[in-house]
């Protein structure tokens, strides 16, 4: 068998972005022997390419760039002398009698690790041009915003001189500014929905400050160009996202940059056959961040796509704490855990999907409203005499996630989130 016997750890953290780093530190601080496994060369995850600021306002009470935020987390991690392997790719996870056997592939060969708990911190991935059914020619010059960001910020290569950005997700907005600063012309940002998908502060700082127009209810319907993008067609759409005849406009450009959404990267959850929540598109967890596989925890963007790295760190800490606790007192998934109830018409999603009254971890609930609403009250009923949480929000918008931490213990026989006037 490769590399002799499996090395033993309490907790294996898979992924070294902000979630994984926080999880590894927190599991370590709670007494677990931890190994952090990263598939890329360097730690930090996607933050490595985020040279813009706006990170850390919650966690560090400071305005940091993504790289600074990552470096703080990395420094803290290294200071604790936690084991780490990089350029190591998980190819197999086998449950074996209360433990997990994880196999990785790296330049060192095929390595095996035995652990009591696993924390999935594998982040998210971008939706592609194909997933939003862009048609026409297939030239070079169609990039997702994250790929364009990698080219510019990591490789120092310019992927465009004049581009159209489809989708108003945060990375798209950030890249509109970044490419403009690097001397490219950003003709406009086009969003199929009637509201921007990214944070308001990004609309203001990345588009408005640079006079980059945002066109709502407008989408790219065709790409032209044999070798390299030469132009794209944009059309306004109706409420059902169908193009409105007569609104077609052809825009000359050499690239189409897409920021059309992020999806949890669920290769590893799938490997473990974990149930996936169709709303979050990530694995189902209870308030300890444990998935339905006992000892497998998840945090950060693999659970649901967060809009702030700070929240990813928070969930990483929770997962680390829970995983360490699990190592000393293993438990199984509680089949009597209460499933979260909410109206899909009111909320885009909410999680954790289950509340286990027998678990000691306090509940942090994350949700997004489905619509842009004002003056609505959101109430969480956990079976106590009074609501576990109730707050009237001046405004709730789908692009901005809300988080609620419930400290008081409750029976948890009910677990219901409601939106009302």
């Amino acid at each position, binding site marked *: *068998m*490769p*590399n002799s016997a499996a090395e033993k750890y309490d907790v294996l953290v898979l992924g070294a972005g902000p979630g994984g780093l926080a999880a590894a530190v927190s599991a370590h601080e709670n007494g677990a022997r931890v190994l952090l496994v990263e*598939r890329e060369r360097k730690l930090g995850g996607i933050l490595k390419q985020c040279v813009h600021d706006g990170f850390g306002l919650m966690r560090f009470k400071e305005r940091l760039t993504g790289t600074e935020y990552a470096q703080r987390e990395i420094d803290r991690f290294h200071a604790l002398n936690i084991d780490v392997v990089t*350029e190591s*790719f998980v*190819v197999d996870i086998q449950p074996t009698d209360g433990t997990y056997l994880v*196999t990785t*592939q*790296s*330049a*060192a*060969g*095929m390595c095996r690790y035995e652990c009591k708990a696993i924390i999935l911190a594998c982040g998210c*991935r*971008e939706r*592609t*041009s*194909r*997933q939003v*059914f862009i*048609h*026409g*020619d*297939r*030239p*070079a010059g169609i990039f*997702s915003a*994250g*790929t364009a960001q*990698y*080219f*510019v910020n*990591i*490789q*120092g*290569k*310019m*992927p*465009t*001189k004049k581009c159209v950005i489809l989708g108003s997700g945060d990375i798209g907005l950030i890249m509109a500014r970044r490419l403009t600063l*690097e*001397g490219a012309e950003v003709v406009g940002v086009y969003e199929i929905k009637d509201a921007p998908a990214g944070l308001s502060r990004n609309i203001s700082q990345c588009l408005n400050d640079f006079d980059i127009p945002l066109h709502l209810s407008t989408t790219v*319907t065709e790409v032209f160009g*044999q*070798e*390299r993008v030469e132009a794209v067609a944009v059309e306004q759409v109706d409420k059902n996202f169908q193009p409105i005849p007569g609104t077609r406009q052809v825009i000359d450009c*050499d690239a189409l940059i897409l920021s059309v959404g992020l999806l949890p990267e669920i*290769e590893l959850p*799938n490997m473990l056959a974990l149930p996936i929540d169709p709303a979050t598109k990530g694995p189902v967890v209870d308030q300890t961040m444990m998935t339905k596989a006992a000892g497998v925890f998840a945090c950060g963007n693999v659970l649901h796509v967060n809009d702030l790295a700070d929240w990813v760190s928070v969930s990483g800490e929770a997962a680390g704490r829970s995983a360490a606790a699990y190592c000393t007192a293993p438990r199984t998934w509680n089949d009597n855990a209460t499933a979260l109830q909410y109206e899909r018409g009111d909320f885009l999603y909410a999680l954790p999907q289950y509340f286990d009254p027998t678990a000691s971890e306090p509940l942090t609930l994350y949700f997004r409203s489905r619509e842009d609403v004002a003056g609505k009250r959101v109430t969480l009923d956990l079976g106590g005499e009074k609501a576990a949480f109730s707050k009237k929000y001046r405004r709730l918008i789908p692009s901005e996630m809300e988080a609620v931490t419930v400290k008081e213990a409750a029976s948890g026989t009910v677990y219901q989130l409601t939106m009302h006037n």
Partner: protein
Amino acid sequence: MQAKLEKKFPGVVCSAFGDSVRLEGELTDWDEIVRCGKRAAKAGFRAVINDITLKGFVPPPMRTPALQDNALAEQTPDVLIIGGGVIGCAIARELRRWALDVLLIDKEDDVAMHASSRNDGMIHPGIASHVGTLRGLYNVRGNAMYTQLCQELHVPFERWSNLILYSDPIFGVGARFYLGYRQKAFGIPGWHVSRRRLQELEPNIAQGIRGGFEYPTSGMLSPYKLTVALADCAVENGARVSLNTVVTAMDVKGTAITAVHTNRGTLRPRVVINAAGCFSDTVAGMAGDRFFSIHPRKGECCILDKEAGPLSQRSMGLVGLAAMSATSKGGGIMRTIDGNVLVGPDAYEQPLREDFSTHKEHIDAVLDKHLKLIRGFHRGQVITYFAGVRAATYEEEFIVEGSARVQNLVHAAGIQSPGLASAPAIAEEIAKITLGRLGGQILPNERFNPVRTAAPVLAKLSLEEKQKVIADNPEYGVVVCRCEGISRGEIRAAVQAPVPATSIDAVKRRVRPGMGRCQGGFCSPLVAEILAEEGVETITKKGAGSELFVGTDGKEGADHA
């Protein structure tokens, strides 16, 4: 015939052109032009040359490489193969069984750039072809050659059976006789399967399907991997491949081609093989042997995520009576050799020979038509889609023959579906014809090795085998493509192969980074890095003009280096 055609297609004039018939005139609808050609094809001439123009449409010129040099000037290969598709590459390998100087040229930046990488990868059993046609003959013969060929080339190949499904029991009764006749005539094993049996074979099959016919000799492979492997093997055996090379003209004296002019110099081959796909009529014309026309028949396909793969095990399509006599089966769904699902293709006539754009109407129609065959398939599983163009003649028949007019010209033309399945048999036949045309005594190539040297494919290896490969070369341990689990070593091997991958797409065709669900988002910058390390100066998606990066002075990334 003139009268008949003119009645239906006013203004069309036909004339004899050698033993072919030539159509001229102008029509306002491309479908009419194709229908007119098809009608003329039934008149008993050798072939139809359709020169009817479409009103208001100027056909775009063949796209040609910008490169100009003299790299091939005054070369005198024994055989010049024009076209680096699966046919041309199979012929190149076949001809190297003999002591011949073989040069293959293609105008694109890589082999397999047109139909050979734009099809469903199915090795048809042969049941879709009419009895008595070359398409049927070469299909059945080629199909039988695939097991050994793929072993030699180290190309993954599986004989996953093909199901022809029906929902109308009356059709089922009729098809039993019709397909039975073809099975017997071609010698294709196959049988009827009841609804119950179907349910066992394909547990997720839709309710409305009443039965079908199963053909166990059907197979699946990656058509571009096969084409690249054929080219690699040919080169390993001494053939030469010159890419970005386009034929611009030929000199013909009497009944022989004396010179072939290209953008890379003038060659003087002894024999020329026309394997130019959608441009095979253009090439024939350059040699003064224009006797047929290609009408480009386009098709669009979708690829579903691997998550959909396990839901069906076979290739299958629902057919009705109309489809049985049509020129194309109308596509279906098939599990690809890499574990995805391919949906489509459709088939429609249009005048452009190298337009690979996709269209919402076609992709939607393909999905609407076929996704419902298997419960669990849905649009959300689509990870990509693409288009290809079939090189169809009006006779809807392959042209596999030595030229009647030009002594040193051999045609492998009009190769459309089932061209992939037929390729090995066509190559064998073309090699025979070529030897005849070369004349004299030709010695066998004693050193010919049919086995291609293949780089390891990590994902297919056991843990122990992986360990060994990585111990030998640690680069095989470093995963670059997270969706498909492809290592840096595998990518580097593709860049160093006999026909080297020099673009992002060329790497993708050989070892798949970018074929997974991220569609290259994560891995394309890393693949670009490896290409640069290997000395590729300008990183392109698919050759000159498709540069990934831009710079103000025209040099990629120059102002950001």
